[in-house]
């Protein structure tokens, strides 16, 4: 498909490579997005393996480097820039300067806030795909995508992580792939696609 071949020239940034980021990155690599910029400062732990795209023999190693390895095993033609560092409101501007679409895949709400506010202030037009609400199980009918201008929100927007609400592979997988699907739609059709469809 000619349209899909254009993905080779696209760059997608992924902020955070945990449950959302690792699965989203793999989906984008499988469909042939040419260049992925991955950022995370964490190492793989055993408790991550219930949902994140890592393997038992990668425990203790930096997530971004392991994700780059895993992606290269799936599709060696993808360029992966793996940055093992913590994003903040200063370095993010340089790191994601050239990406076509940015995926927010961070864990804590305060980190999400800093990154989302910085991105929307610095690049008010650039598509940003965020994940909000994916803990627990069931509730398939609650998970959805909603667009506000250049901001695309995936998730159920209510299920917060907590002691009784762990993040688990199925729902995290659904939301991360919904983010990847949204990125794909933006790359192939532009970010104005569903804009304000539900107005009036």
């Amino acid at each position, binding site marked *: 498909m000619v349209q899909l071949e254009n993905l080779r020239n696209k760059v997608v940034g992924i902020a955070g490579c945990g449950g959302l980021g690792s699965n989203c990155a793999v989906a984008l690599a499988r469909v042939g997005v040419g260049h992925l910029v991955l950022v995370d400062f964490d190492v793989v732990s055993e408790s991550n393996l219930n949902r994140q795209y890592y393997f038992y023999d990668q425990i203790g190693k930096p997530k971004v480097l392991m994700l780059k390895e895993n992606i290269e095993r799936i599709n060696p033609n993808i360029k992966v820039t793996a940055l093992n560092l913590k994003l903040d409101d200063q370095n993010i501007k340089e790191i994601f300067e050239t990406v076509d679409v940015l995926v927010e895949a961070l864990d804590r709400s305060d980190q999400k806030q800093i990154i989302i506010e910085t991105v929307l202030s610095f690049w008010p037009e650039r598509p940003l795909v965020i994940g909000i609400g994916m803990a627990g199980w069931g509730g398939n009918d609650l998970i959805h995508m909603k667009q506000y201008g250049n901001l695309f929100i995936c998730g159920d*927007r209510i299920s917060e992580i907590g002691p009784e609400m762990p993040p688990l592979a199925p729902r995290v997988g659904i939301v991360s792939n919904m983010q990847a699907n949204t990125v794909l739609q933006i790359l192939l059709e532009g970010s104005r696609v569903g804009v304000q469809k539900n107005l009036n």
Partner: protein
Amino acid sequence: MKIQLNNRKEVFPDNQLTVQELLDIKKFTFKMLIIRINGNIVKKDQYKETYIHDNDDVMVLHLISGG
């Protein structure tokens, strides 16, 4: 005034409201919010001094942890 709030039309008897007044009226009490007016981010320390006017497009997004 008539505004768009989270992609929905809303009507208020006031000619203008601060962001904080809007949050109070709508009972948005969550502490972690992303707010945009006509695409521009409004940070927490600006809620009391930033005004919403007729025809403004306002987004109030509640953030929760998980990823």
